[in-house]
């Protein structure tokens, strides 16, 4: 067996190929970003060049930018594994794990849920309000033990309910979920604003927000410092949810139904899957995960609900795409985007390159991930793979009882 054979077999293994493509997409977008930074560095003016290539001076130094972006997100992790920037990275990752897997579940069921943002907002608000109300009943350690799971449950329930709406509309009224979820995002934001302002406002604050939750009612900041708004517990919970969803999809009957209706609805129907009900339940599950993301955002990062929730829901779409909608892959993709989000702050502070660059990188990564054929082509150029007849569907006619139908 020669090297080419083994390389070829590795590339054919789909999970591995998926990983290779994602990695290649990341590298390629970094390369494009590199050029972009240099170009931007020529468009702006500065006293002295930050870097120069081939005798041309540039105002921005891409190497510094990437250094800040990727390493900055980890802080000085070896000297101080609990440093604040690393905590921020992980806390962003935690929320993205929820929104990413929320989108992934819907995707796997063949539904394009763009409404995770709205579901997250609804879950977050419901969590903040209900935990606040319940926090008068218990306190102390018992309060934490009871209130945090309660808050998560409420967030999940409300998210599920809000996710079920477009599910119902799709299943029983044939309404395109892309449209309804986009609309429902706007509605969620506006209604949350109204509710907070008119009914749940914190009278002490000028911000449109609810009264802060007592310390015992939020995620305890296990191991990490309280000020960093990160809880290892929440992170572990998120990881457990990812594994749970993976097991659910791969090992359970309903997971089988969901996946089947996602890739081949006709076959699912044939196999006894109730298509409309699967649509509704999948959307409810996706919404519940989005709602959980909102609950974690409230219970770990913010400590209350405030209007102007960051776009975790939309980021979830990109996370899920990068992960190939695989719940376990979502973990890694969430970490990458967590690094990008946290790193962009370091870039903003530590360099003069506009942090929106990270947004461009994100778009490029998704663009490249969307075109696996491009990388396969390059791969074929590099290895000049021979086509392996056994692994290819027969094109037309020929052996094996196939017909030209």
């Amino acid at each position, binding site marked *: 067996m020669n090297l080419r054979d083994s390389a070829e077999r590795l590339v054919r293994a789909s999970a591995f190929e998926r990983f290779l493509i994602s990695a290649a997409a990341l590298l390629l977008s970094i390369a494009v970003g590199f050029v972009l930074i240099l170009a931007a560095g020529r468009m702006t003016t500065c006293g002295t060049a930050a870097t120069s290539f081939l005798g041309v001076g540039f105002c921005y130094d891409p190497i510094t930018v990437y250094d800040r972006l990727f390493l900055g997100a980890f802080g000085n992790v070896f000297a101080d594994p609990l440093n604040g920037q690393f905590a921020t990275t992980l806390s962003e990752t935690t929320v993205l794990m929820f929104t990413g897997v929320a989108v992934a579940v819907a995707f796997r069921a063949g539904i394009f849920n763009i409404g995770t943002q709205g579901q997250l907002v609804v879950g977050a608000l419901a969590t903040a309000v209900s935990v606040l109300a319940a926090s008068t009943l218990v306190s102390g350690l018992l309060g934490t033990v009871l209130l945090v799971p309660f808050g998560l449950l409420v967030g999940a329930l409300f998210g599920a309910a809000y996710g079920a709406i477009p599910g119902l509309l799709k299943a029983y009224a044939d309404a395109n979920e892309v449209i309804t979820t986009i609309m429902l995002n706007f509605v969620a934001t*506006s209604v949350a604003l109204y509710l907070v302002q008119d009914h749940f406002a914190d009278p002490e604050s000028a911000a449109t927000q609810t009264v802060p939750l007592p310390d015992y009612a939020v995620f305890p900041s296990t191991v990490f410092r309280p000020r960093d708004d990160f809880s290892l517990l929440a992170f572990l919970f998120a990881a457990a949810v990812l594994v749970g969803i993976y097991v659910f999809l791969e090992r359970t009957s309903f997971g089988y139904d969901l996946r089947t209706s996602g890739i081949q609805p006709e076959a699912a129907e044939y196999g006894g899957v109730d298509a409309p009900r699967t649509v509704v339940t999948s959307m409810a599950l996706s919404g519940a995960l989005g709602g959980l993301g909102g609950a974690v955002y409230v219970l770990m990062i913010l400590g209350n609900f405030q209007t102007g929730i960051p776009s975790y829901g939309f980021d979830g779409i990109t996370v899920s795409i990068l992960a190939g909608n695989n719940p376990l892959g979502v973990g890694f993709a969430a970490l990458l985007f967590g690094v990008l989000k946290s790193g962009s702050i370091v870039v903003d502070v530590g360099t003069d390159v506009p942090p929106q660059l990270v947004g461009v990188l*994100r778009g490029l990564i998704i663009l490249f991930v969307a075109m696996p054929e491009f990388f396969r082509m390059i791969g074929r150029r590099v290895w000049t793979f021979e086509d392996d007849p056994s692994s290819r569907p027969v094109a037309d006619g020929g052996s094996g009882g196939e017909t030209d139908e």
Partner: protein
Amino acid sequence: MSSDSFGDLSWRRVVGGAAVLGLAVLAVAGVVAPESDAGRLLDILTAQTTLAATLRLSVPIAFAALGGIFAEKSGVINIGLEGLLIIAAFTGVYLTDVTGSVWMGVLGGVVASTVLAALFAVVCIEFRADQVIAGLAVWLIALGLAPFASQVVYGGPNTTSVETVGTLTIPLLSRIPFFGALFDATPFVYLMFVAVALSWYTINRTTFGRWVRASGENPKALDTAGVDVQRVRYAAVLLSGVLAGVGGAALSLSLGQFTGNGATMVNGKGFIAIVAYLFGNYNPVGALLSTMLFAGLDALQLTLQARDVFAVPKPLVRTIPYVTVIVVLALFGRTRTPEAAGDHYESGDD
């Protein structure tokens, strides 16, 4: 499909009828009691200024929707319209700033949007990318790139103010009650009507339009008829870039500024455009009408707030357009998407 039984349809008709009836009741009540909420609402609904606002708000959405129609009719779902609007909105202002000419700005916006659409086309057609994901990528790239460029050039996500395009008023005609708004508007509004008419004509009466339709319905039929499907699709996607480019430039140049914070000044208009053309069943005229329905509701909610009609909290009034879209979609949700939309096609595929 088993979920769509006959019962659903008749239920839809009943609710749809009820909505029409409700409007009729409102009209009667409005006429009988002009000082009531109903009366004031009717007053606002029939005001020339409401139509004028509707038209202005329609421009970017309608252009993007026209672009979306061409792309999707040809079989390429272009969910990146939002991104095309964003990039055109920024470039429009930037080039106006640099050249001092608004029309150069419009041209610049169109070019930028078309270049981005070309990238999208190559990725989808050449490299068989998933169209929806690639479209999202186009949106994300523009969402990052425009504010990035603004930061580099203007030091902030918002650009400076530049010259704007004024209104063109047609004497006399502009005095017609209500419809006068059609003759007292910016050049973009007129351009919008021209574009809608031309698009309709192109799709339904020209050879190119036929090829576009065939390419989205049955690309193989077109291929076997000897027309290069990929070229038709390239042309259609580029055209969607041109049209969305006009829309984006019109958006920022009616105002003279590009604002790039958060969702940028485009703020979902590209997605609304998708809603509009789906609603309008891929018909340019239908798309314009549904755009105007949405824009009209948007204009209405602003006026309702100011005039304090119905004592509903303001954030809730703002949801009117969105809720309406959901309700209408639920009632008349069925749209017939082109058979091959979203599918990659390569000649010789069997």
